[in-house]
């Protein structure tokens, strides 16, 4: 059996680790709160924008606007993967990477040329290690993503889609259903498929015209989709980290319990042995 002193040292280590994980859990909890607020605050804009685009959109417009163009054959697709810059969030990054690889595999099996765009240190590290080519690598997305950051991430892709260099653009990120449920998933950014609205724009004064407004709104729609993904991804990251750190703290607690038990046993054993030795020594003197 390990000596009581060794056990004591281990107890100390585990206790230190538990303190760290508990602090990280608390930090993640407060960041999660703010990130969740941002997710909800972003919804009115997305909803209103989707409503306006839907009210201006009519089927048959697809040929007129490059962003609505539905290519007959998809030759080249871009995948934009959003991961975190930091780890210690359980399987958060691994799940996103897995999702992205599945999507890439599926596209390639259909004979589509793919290109990969990665945001977040963790995703970049993985694909660099695998030796896969990444078209762009971004590590400058903050915990509180802004609309400008989203724009800088996607505007290049939108331009290339308009020029016809790309036939589809996908984004891989976590959907933020709740703090506990943040499944990874992918959605298609381009071409846009607006939900068909009741075309109630007829009763409106349109300035300059419905067509021009729609044309100007579509890029904003794409930007907003990316912004929403970024915000939800940031919230999902904090949620995953909180869960991971809570588990770590709980495990450390369990470990401490077992270690304390074996420490007490070792200490008791030592005392018993010492008493036995003293008794034995006294008996030898008689």
């Amino acid at each position, binding site marked *: 059996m390990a000596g009581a002193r060794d056990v004591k040292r281990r107890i100390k280590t585990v206790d230190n680790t538990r303190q760290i994980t508990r602090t990280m859990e608390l930090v993640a909890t407060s960041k999660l709160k703010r990130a969740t607020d*941002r997710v909800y*605050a*972003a919804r*009115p*804009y*997305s909803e*209103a*924008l989707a409503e*306006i685009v839907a009210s*201006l959109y009519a089927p048959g417009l697809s040929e007129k606007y490059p962003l609505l163009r539905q290519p007959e054959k998809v030759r080249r697709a871009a995948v934009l993967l959003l991961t975190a810059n930091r780890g210690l969030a359980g399987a958060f990054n691994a799940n996103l990477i897995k999702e992205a690889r599945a999507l890439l595999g599926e596209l390639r099996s259909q004979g589509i040329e793919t290109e990969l765009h990665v945001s977040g240190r963790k995703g970049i590290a993985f694909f660099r290690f695998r030796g896969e080519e990444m078209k762009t690598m971004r590590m400058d997305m903050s915990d509180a993503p*802004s*609309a*400008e950051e*989203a*724009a800088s991430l996607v505007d290049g892709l939108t331009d290339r889609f308009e020029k016809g260099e790309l036939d589809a653009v996908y984004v891989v990120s976590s959907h933020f259903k709740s703090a506990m449920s943040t499944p990874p998933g992918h959605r298609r950014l381009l071409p846009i498929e607006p939900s068909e609205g009741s075309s109630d*724009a007829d*009763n*409106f*004064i*349109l*300035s*300059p*015209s*419905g*067509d*021009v*407004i729609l*044309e*100007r*709104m579509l890029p*904003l729609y794409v*930007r*907003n989709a990316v*912004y929403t993904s970024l915000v939800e991804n940031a919230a999902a990251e904090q949620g995953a980290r909180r869960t991971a750190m809570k588990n770590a703290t709980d495990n450390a607690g369990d470990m401490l319990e077992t270690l304390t038990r074996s420490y007490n046993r070792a200490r008791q054993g030592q005392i018993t042995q010492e008493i036995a030795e003293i008794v034995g020594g006294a008996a030898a003197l008689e």
Partner: protein
Amino acid sequence: MLSVRVVSPEKIVFEGDASSLVAPAWDGLVGVLPRHAPMLALLGVGQLNIDLPGGGSEAFHVAMGVLKVENDEVTVLTEYAGSAPPPPDVYDAHPEDDIVASPGNPLV
């Protein structure tokens, strides 16, 4: 009385009643009073002024987006809304040049 909502991608910037507002549309300022006809107008870059019912006013710098008026409900959707002017390079300050020339413009 108008009920006004100014929404940016990040949050609802302003929500409340107003007696009138002046917004920077793509081709110049546009004023909205109660009982305005339904309207959808493209926004440019500039200052949005909201006159509050009790006197006083609120002002925001906005950039791009759209202004929607329907049944005295005004929604200002804008890419940028803040007390400081937007960063100059991010937003197209003169969309009118492209728009006048664009094929969808009925004026052409």
